[in-house]
């Protein structure tokens, strides 16, 4: 990076707010999807929206790409500097600015860790609902960029349903405030379209989130099955009974095997072909009856064991296995890649059969964890990074899984985003007109294409989009699949 630009960055950020040392920059060469790497040319540590604005203006002046980064837990390469440039680190903007109990809102900075909002509001009887599994580490700004999900989406919605108002720095450096505390659309829902734009529309610098009252009571139960079909039918029957579970999590035998062999051992029945973790929450009144109704549905579908947690400790135990499932894979495989796809939930048995067939075809193991309530499937591809022939097959195997999911009416990503990882697959679900329309909207927010380039759209498109600024062919980055441990790093 030109010394002149570095000097100007230091003027804006202060002497310790800029990193340009090549070794230090390697820390920022990827997010939690470590198979795609490219370092930025500089990292700045923002503390105010004004600093972000000035850095963005500088980047515009020199036509340098720039992008925001939260805590780097993303799993689609969204915070990876695909074309180098300036990476704007948001972690120092980590204050909860206010909590308004009566109006059930909190005003937070983007670097605040998701779980910290819930921790800060819990004593007041409130919480922030979206709970991606990385919630102990992921930032709310990153959640907004990716429209993060979590196991409780079915009942409580995704991030987009909980963001009311934002302050953001636009791609030309202007600071704007959009939305309002009522979440009412006045004119156009610009907040709604910025949420989930994967950091390509604006850099969010302040967020007003909706808080919900903590449920009075929670019931959690585990049901074990000898067949995937019976397990899947239970899900349909629970929905058909008019029950809205807070969470409905599916694990296949491979996932159970890994969990039970690990420190996350939760006492799941080891011989089960599939298991469901079901949670209902809400008012204490009526919850016991709802839970009983679910038990009956499980039994009707030949669950051979149904275990209802008696207290918080047993509840935590049941969740331990599910939440630790990704980390537990280390017990049965040296390395793994977390996939993220969505299918209509009734299609699960057929899709699983196909994934197992592909697993055999590629000679790579696969375990499946599934947010069965909302159809979000997380196949975990198991491999050994020391074996090149295995590594070489991951992308094709993953691609085939995507195709299977799309073929049954599903989609490419339920919560991780497209980023770098899946952009070449966008053509599976969207045609030219669909992508053109998205590109048009991107042009409104990001006309010069400097903000987080080479993301979301297939490569050919992103090249034409940014024109001569392109220095790196991201498709070749994609092929540089490196041996990486993703253990426990997941947002799932």
């Amino acid at each position, binding site marked *: 990076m030109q010394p002149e630009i570095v000097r100007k960055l230091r003027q804006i950020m202060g002497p310790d707010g800029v990193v340009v040392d090549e070794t230090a920059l390697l820390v920022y060469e990827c997010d939690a999807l470590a198979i795609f790497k490219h370092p930025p040319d500089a990292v700045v540590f923002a503390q105010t929206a004004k600093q972000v604005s000035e850095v963005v203006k500088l980047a515009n002046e020199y036509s340098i790409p720039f992008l925001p980064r939260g805590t780097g837990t993303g799993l689609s390469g969204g915070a990876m500097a695909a074309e180098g440039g300036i990476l704007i680190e948001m972690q120092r903007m980590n204050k909860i600015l206010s909590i308004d109990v*009566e109006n059930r809102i909190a005003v937070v900075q983007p670097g605040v860790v998701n779980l910290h909002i819930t921790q800060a509001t819990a004593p007041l009887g409130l919480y922030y609902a979206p709970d991606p599994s990385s919630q102990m580490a992921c930032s709310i700004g990153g959640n907004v960029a990716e429209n993060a999900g979590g196991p409780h989406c079915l009942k409580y919605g995704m991030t987009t349903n909980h963001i009311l108002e934002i302050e953001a720095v636009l791609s030309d450096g202007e600071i704007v405030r959009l939305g309002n505390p009522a979440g009412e659309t006045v004119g156009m829902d610009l907040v709604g379209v910025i949420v989930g734009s994967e950091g390509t529309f604006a850099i969010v610098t302040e967020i007003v989130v909706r808080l919900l009252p903590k449920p009075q009571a929670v019931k959690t139960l585990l049901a074990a099955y000898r067949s995937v079909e019976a397990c899947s039918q239970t899900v349909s029957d629970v929905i058909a009974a008019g029950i809205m579970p807070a969470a409905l999590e599916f694990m296949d035998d491979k996932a159970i095997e890994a969990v039970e062999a690990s420190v996350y051992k939760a006492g799941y029945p080891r011989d089960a072909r599939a298991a469901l973790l079901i949670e209902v929450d809400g008012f204490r009144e009526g919850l016991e009856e709802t839970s009983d109704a679910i038990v009956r549905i499980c039994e009707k579908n030949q669950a051979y064991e149904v275990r209802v947690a008696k207290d918080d400790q047993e509840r935590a135990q049941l969740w331990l296995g599910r939440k630790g499932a990704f980390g537990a894979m280390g017990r049965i495989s040296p390395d793994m890649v977390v996939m993220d796809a969505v*299918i209509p939930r009734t299609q699960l048995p057929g899709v699983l059969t196909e994934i197992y067939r592909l697993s055999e075809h590629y000679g790579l193991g696969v375990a499946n964890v599934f947010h069965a309530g909302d159809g979000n499937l997380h196949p975990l591809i198991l491999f050994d990074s020391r074996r090149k022939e295995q590594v070489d097959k991951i992308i094709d195997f993953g691609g085939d899984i995507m195709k299977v999911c799309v073929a049954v*009416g599903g989609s490419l*990503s339920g919560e991780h985003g497209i980023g770098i990882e899946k952009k070449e697959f966008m053509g599976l679900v969207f045609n030219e007109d669909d992508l053109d329309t998205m590109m048009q909207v991107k042009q409104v927010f990001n006309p010069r294409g400097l903000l987080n380039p080479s993301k979301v759209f297939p490569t050919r498109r992103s090249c034409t989009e940014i024109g001569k600024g392109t220095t790196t062919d991201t498709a070749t980055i994609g092929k540089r699949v490196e041996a990486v441990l993703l253990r426990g790093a997941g947002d799932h």
Partner: protein
Amino acid sequence: MTIDGIGAGRLVFPESIEQLSECVAAEKGSVVPVGAGTQLEFGNPLKSADCVVNLTRLNKVTTYNPAELTIHVEAGVTLKHLHSLLAANNQTLPLDPWNGADATIGGIASTSAQGPLRATGTIRDWIIGMTVVHIDGRRSKTGGRVVKNVTGYDLAKLYTGSLGSLAIIAEISFKLRPSFPATATALARFSSLAEAESVLAAIRTSKVQPIACELSGPKHAVTVRFGEHPQAVEFQIRNLPKASWEVVKAENENVSLENLHRLHSEMGPIVLRVVGKPSEVRGIIEEYQPSSWIAHALNGIVLMAFDDASAIAAVRRKFPAIVERAPAAIRSEFGTFGVQGAAKRLMVDMKRTFDPERRLNPGRHIDGE
């Protein structure tokens, strides 16, 4: 057919999305999409209407598989039809817009219409995908057919509430919820706004979670509706702050909700939708002294009726406010949305990008103010 005094040049009734596409592509003048026509006076006055595209024959339910808890419908399906179809499967889309169940689902989405159930969200929260027809006749889709999806930009958010000014909504996919296992509505009348507000303040910090909570005036009536497991409904009614509540269920509940809708329909001649915080509702009403009002008390949104248009500018000095109802001349003078600054610039750019020749619903949305 006349909208805001503009007569339609031609009126077409496409019966499929393909036909819609074709007739929009063939049109060289202005194109005005309409549904059941329940909200033709919402938005800035229309500037021209060479071709009015009536979408009510685009009324097929494309797919409904109750086990998926999703439904895919064409834009002309009425809310009434949708509700009856869903109710037969013990499911619902919790929408009760003021303009009634005869409205089409496309019209409700285009206007982001809402009613007492605002406390549970708006239509934006239930839309998972959309197909739209652009001014050149091209079709595009956004989102998908699954309940959780972050594939590509969520353009349905843009189309929702933009009054058909960017593209014509042709098909919508919704996620659904189970029907409320039981509902009940508690009604109380208070002698003053202060008294009503003290009860609402207690509700805001209490254990109850109403699906609707409306404060109407000048009679200071509070309508609180619950939808939950029967035992949880009873629990919440027991835990309401002290007041002389009358609890109504079943048919009587419908009557009380209809009364609320009637109150809304009688508001005027100017109705503003003022956006504040729940704790500001009382202050907003006291400061601007509307002739009548209905507040979504848990959302901080107050619908206020005025005789005099000067209230619009006064309110907008402090709060965002949408002109929900007003004679065309007043909508034209003040603008329906009153958005300013960078937000307005982005919206105008968006309109220009989607419709550079300004042929789609010209003047109706942000381009009319």
